[in-house]
Structures are given as structure tokens and as C-alpha cells.
């Protein structure tokens, strides 16, 4: 008797569970609740221009996922509307301004998770802000997708919920060293370099990586100049450079400061053989118009290349231009790419359950042809870092950058030394 009772109860429990799961399934399929993503960017403050441009790019990524775009067929999820894995659910973005302030970024991350019940977080441009916001997601077990922050320490903390799509400081540093080797082989003189960096997490981290890589390659660093990006005068720094006279000056700078450096160099008549910008300020939409006539031939890094008309990248650029009135830049492009990678993982997870999302991110394996950026693919290691991220080097010619290195991808010939204003 007892045995039968147990059986009956077990059968009943089983039936109830089945009914519940059926009901849940039906509800999901019917309603297709949106997937809520909280996006942290500096929408005001010093880096607001970059934050606004990145916001537009992430919005465009969501538009591509949420609506049918058969013309972008090689981009995952572009073809049909919504996320098929979640019954056609849409991405719903909530943008929050952290003003470039790490403590605001942390508070807002907390608010987005605990109060607004976001399924995922995304952001946050400045490395210093990403560094403080990510531990909140880690504590709550919510995936945090990092689009463009390059400081090493973000993924170096044993976190399980942070996934970074962009290349990082060490990738950039080793790219520069390979480039210098190529130049030396081509007969250019690179006896020493100078590293000028803004002194928050981003600049410090990249500068340290460059210094370490230079040391390994027996390339002397003539001088390293850390400075604050909100500075209004850089004459003294330019004079320091003039005194040391390095062959390449690497700038790891934000927008206003990088424009100020190039203008001051012209004013004080100091032109090194090559200026190499580490993205950020050099990729800001305000940078090229401000210095085009005095900065000819300066170089920058970028994983973004608009490409020929008719290509997927050119089509994406057209959509971005229609939306914002200007071309997509590398920083915004890396954020847009990260948003697309995020959507692909959510779709594979088939749910907004954090553990399933985490597992889907870990299993991400995208090929170069599925990407809009020039990465070799997307695959996360156990720290959450994309191990296939890489970058190109570009050079300012007339009023735009052209891809010049590596030679295999180059559109035009690299010019060395740079012409500047001469």
C-alpha cells in the first residue's frame, strides 16, 4: 500500500512539474519577453563624445538583431527579426551615464542589477569604470560584456562573469613591437621610443605593457610621460620629448589631450619621425578634423576598416552614418561588435537564466567572416578574455585614415617618416 502511495505521489509530482514546464514554455513562446541589457557609458564629461558615439553603435547592433536585415547575412542574427532561440525576443537596452567616474559606474551597475533586474550588463568605455563596475556583476552572477576597455587588470581577477571581446593592452604592445621589427627590417631607424600616457587605468596599463614589451625587445624607452587627461597645457611635456628626441612617440591619450599634443608639437616645432596613437583620442570623430592639416602621416591602431562599397562593413558604416551623420570609428565599432557577440551568446543560451548565459558565452566560437571587426575570431579563455582579438595599424592620409599594416591587409603604402605640417 505504502509503495503504491509513494508511486502515486511521484506520478502526481511529475505531472505537475511537466505541466509547469509546459506552461512556462508556452508563456515564453507567446510573450517573448525582451532581454534586458544595462549599458554603462560616459554620456557626459570628458569622454562624452566617445560615449555617445558608442551608444549609437550599440543601438545599431540592437536594431540589426531586433529587425530583419538579410543584406547583412554573414553577421549572426542579422537575417531574421529578434532572437529565434528565445522565441523571437528582442534586445531591450537601458543606457546609463557614469560620467567617466568609477564610483558612479559602480553605483549604477548595482542599481541596474538589483533594482532594474537587468539580465546582462555592458560597458563601460574607460577602463577605470569597467574595473569598478564588473565586480558588482561578478557578485550577483550576471554576465558583464566588455566592449572596448583595454586595461589588463579587468580580466585578471579570476572573475567568472566578465567577457571581454576587445584586444587588450598586451595585444596592442606586442602588435607595436612586431610593427617596429618590420620597420627596422625595411631599413627605418628606430633607436628609441617615448611613451606618453594619460594616467588612469587605461593609459597606465597600456603604457606599462608597451614598456615591458620594449624591454623584452631591447628597444630603449627614452622617456615615459604620464599626465592627466584634463590638462589644459602640454608645452612642458612636448619640450621634454624634444630634449630626448626619440624616433617614435606613442600616445595613449583621450580626445582633447591628443588634439592639444599635436597642436602644441606644431607650435613648438617638434616633429618626431613617427607619432603612433593608441586609438581612443586618435580615433575620436573630433580628432582628424582638428589636426588633419598638421598631423599628416601620423599613425593609429584600429580593428575597424570600412572596406569597399557593397561589403558588410561598408553597409554597416552606411547605416551608422545615416543614424549619426558620421563614419563608424574603431572604439564604437569594437563596442558594436561586442554587442553582436553578446546577442549571439544570448540566442544560443535560449534563456535569460544567468547560468545558461554564462555557459553560452564560454562556448562562443565565432569565425572572422562572422565579424565586422578585423579580429581573428571570438573565443573566450577561462578569464573571459577573447584570445582571437587583434588589430591593424592605420595612417592619416589627407582627411582619413588608411590601413597600412600588416602588409597583407594594407590598402596603401606606409609613409615613413611622417610629414606632419611640413
Amino acid at each position, binding site marked *: 500500500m505504502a509503495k503504491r502511495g509513494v508511486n502515486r505521489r511521484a506520478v502526481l509530482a511529475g505531472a505537475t512539474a511537466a505541466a509547469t514546464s509546459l506552461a512556462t514554455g508556452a508563456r515564453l513562446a507567446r510573450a517573448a519577453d525582451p532581454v534586458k541589457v544595462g549599458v554603462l557609458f560616459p554620456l557626459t564629461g570628458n569622454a562624452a563624445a566617445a560615449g555617445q558615439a558608442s551608444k549609437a553603435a550599440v543601438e545599431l547592433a540592437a536594431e540589426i538583431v531586433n529587425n530583419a536585415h538579410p543584406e547583412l547575412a554573414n553577421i549572426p542574427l542579422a537575417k531574421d527579426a529578434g532572437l529565434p532561440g528565445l522565441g523571437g525576443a528582442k534586445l531591450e537596452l537601458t543606457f546609463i551615464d557614469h560620467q567617466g567616474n568609477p564610483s558612479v559606474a559602480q553605483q549604477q551597475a548595482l542599481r541596474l542589477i538589483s533594482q532594474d533586474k537587468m539580465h546582462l550588463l555592458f560597458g563601460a568605455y574607460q577602463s577605470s569604470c569597467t574595473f569598478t563596475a564588473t565586480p558588482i556583476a561578478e557578485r550577483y552572477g550576471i554576465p558583464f560584456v566588455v566592449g572596448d576597455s583595454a586595461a589588463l587588470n579587468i580580466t585578471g581577477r579570476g572573475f567568472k562573469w566578465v567577457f571581454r571581446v576587445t584586444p587588450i593592452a598586451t595585444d596592442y604592445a606586442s602588435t607595436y613591437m612586431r610593427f617596429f621589427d618590420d620597420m627596422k627590417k625595411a631599413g627605418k631607424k628606430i633607436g628609441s621610443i617615448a611613451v606618453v600616457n594619460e594616467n588612469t587605468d587605461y593609459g597606465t596599463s597600456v603604457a606599462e605593457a608597451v614598456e615591458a614589451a620594449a624591454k623584452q625587445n631591447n628597444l630603449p624607452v627614452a622617456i615615459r610621460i604620464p*599626465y592627466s587627461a584634463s590638462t*589644459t597645457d602640454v608645452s612642458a611635456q612636448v619640450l621634454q620629448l624634444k630634449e630626448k628626441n626619440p624616433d617614435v612617440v606613442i600616445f595613449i591619450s583621450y580626445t582633447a589631450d591628443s588634439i592639444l599634443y599635436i597642436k602644441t608639437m606644431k607650435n613648438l616645432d617638434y616633429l618626431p619621425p613617427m607619432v603612433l596613437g593608441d586609438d581612443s583620442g586618435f580615433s575620436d570623430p573630433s580628432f582628424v578634423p582638428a589636426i588633419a592639416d598638421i598631423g599628416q602621416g601620423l599613425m593609429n591602431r584600429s580593428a575597424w576598416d570600412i572596406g569597399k562599397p557593397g561589403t558588410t562593413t561598408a553597409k554597416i558604416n552606411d547605416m551608422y552614418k545615416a543614424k549619426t551623420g558620421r563614419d563608424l570609428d574603431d572604439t564604437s565599432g569594437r563596442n558594436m561588435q561586442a554587442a553582436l557577440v553578446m546577442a549571439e551568446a544570448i540566442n544560443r543560451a535560449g534563456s535569460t537564466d544567468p547560468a545558461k548565459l554564462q555557459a553560452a558565452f564560454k562556448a562562443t566560437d565565432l569565425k572572422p567572416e562572422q565579424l565586422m571587426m578585423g579580429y581573428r575570431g571570438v573565443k573566450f579563455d577561462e578569464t573571459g578574455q577573447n584570445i582571437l582579438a587583434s588589430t591593424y595599424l592605420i595612417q592619416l592620409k589627407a582627411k582619413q585614415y588608411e590601413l597600412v599594416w600588416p602588409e597583407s591587409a594594407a590598402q596603401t603604402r606606409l609613409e615613413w617618416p611622417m610629414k606632419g605640417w611640413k
Partner: protein
Amino acid sequence: MLLLQVIVGGLLLGAIYALFSSGLTLIWGMMNFINFAHGEFVMLGMYVALMIVVWLGGGPAVFGIASAFALFVLGVAIYLSLIRHVTRGPMLAQILSTFGLALLLRYTAFWIFSANVVSLPQTSLGGTLNIFGILVPAAQLVAGVTATVITIALHLFLTGTTLGSQLLAVAEDRNAAMLMGIRPDRMQALAWGLAAAGAGIAGALMAISYPWSPSVGETFGLTAFVVVTLGGFGSVPGAMYAGLIIGLIQALSAFYLGPIYKDIVVYALFAALLWFRPQGLLGKA
């Protein structure tokens, strides 16, 4: 030679610090009123210059005057619509009113001009002069000299003219001045206009060499407070010397110690000086 170059650069920058700080010190001296929106006036001066260049194609002389005029009007308008009323309130209301004004101006600028960094196209002052081997950017030389001239002119105006004396009379004793037939409201409106105009010209002059965005006012506002405190609240010549000293110290310490140390040096010396002379260099105890 490099040392001379550093010194010249520091002094030219200091002259501009002096110009936009003299307006702040004027308002303090006139009304015992701290204007937290002063840096925002400088920022607006920069945007006026940009609009004149982009829309009307005017040169530095035109946009310098236009910035001064536009900011003069704004300064008077702010006095009449806001400051006049809050001076009757408690001290905290006065402080917070200009703080709120600063945020209002900054975020209005964000709204109108966007957060993008802008800079003036190369102007007629784009060149660099070579004076006995020292490179002096023309824009900075003109800015520095103009700033010095205007600061001195402001001082002479305050000490040598009837109108200036009336201004100072109101500053010294509002009620006594009223008994002498001076209208304090008009005088104080004039002081706000002059202070804002000084900041406007300074902004226009700096716009020639520096890229900026609406948040730039914060940096300038802070610098102005340091200059004014060092020079002595209410003293225009004090602001002049203090501006030059701070420009020079910043340049020398940035060159010899590195840019991240320059503010440490400036503020350490600043604190040390206030230890001995809390009223500032030329302030009245």
C-alpha cells in the same frame, strides 16, 4: 635655452590665468560673493568664438570682442535675474545658487553644442615666432599680451576713474555709497558684466590654442579659485601676480618633475603660502 622656453610658456599661460581670475576677484571684492560659475563663463566665451568663426568667418579681433560683449550681457542678465535676489538670502543659498548656475550653463552647453571636443580652425594667429631661438606661438603671445593689458586696464579703471571709484565705494560700504547717490545695484550689475566679459575674452583667446568641450569650465574654475586665493581675494594686481606665478610653477614642475607632479607642487606651495599669509599675496587682512 630649453629652460627659457619653459619659462616663456609658463608666463604666457599665467597671463591668461590672470585674466580670467581677475573677474572672479572683482566679484568677490565687490560683493563678498563666490561665483562658482566663473569657469563656465570662460567655456561660453570659447563657444562664442567658435560660432563667430564658423558662421561669420571672423578673425581673432572680431571674436575676442564678440565674446567679451556676449558675456558682458550674460553677466549683467545673471546678476539682475538671479544674484540680486539671492544676496538677500543666507550664505548657503548664495553659494549654491552659483553652483546650480554652473551646472545649468554646463549642461545647456552640452545640450546645444554636444559633448564633442571642438577646436578653432587654423586662424591668422596659427604661426610660431622665433625670438632669439625661443619659439613663441603667435596665438599664445597675443593672448598673453592682451590678457596682461586688459588686466592692467581693469586695475586702472578701478583705481583711476570715477566709475571705478563708485564700484569700489559700493564694495567698501554699500550703505555709505548709497548715501552718496551711487546706485549699488547698477554698480554690481556692472561688476558682474565686467567679470564675465574678462572671462569671455580669456576664453576666446584660449580657444585659439586649446581644444575644448563643455566640461572644460571645471578645470578653469578651479584654477581661478587658486589664483584668486593666492593673490588675495578682491585684489586685481594680486590675481595678476598669482596667475603668472602659478603658470610659471606649473610649467617648471611639469618639465623637471613630470606633468602629474605639477599640481602637487602648485598646491603644496599654495598651502605653504597661506600658512604665512592667509589673506594671500596682496589681500587685505
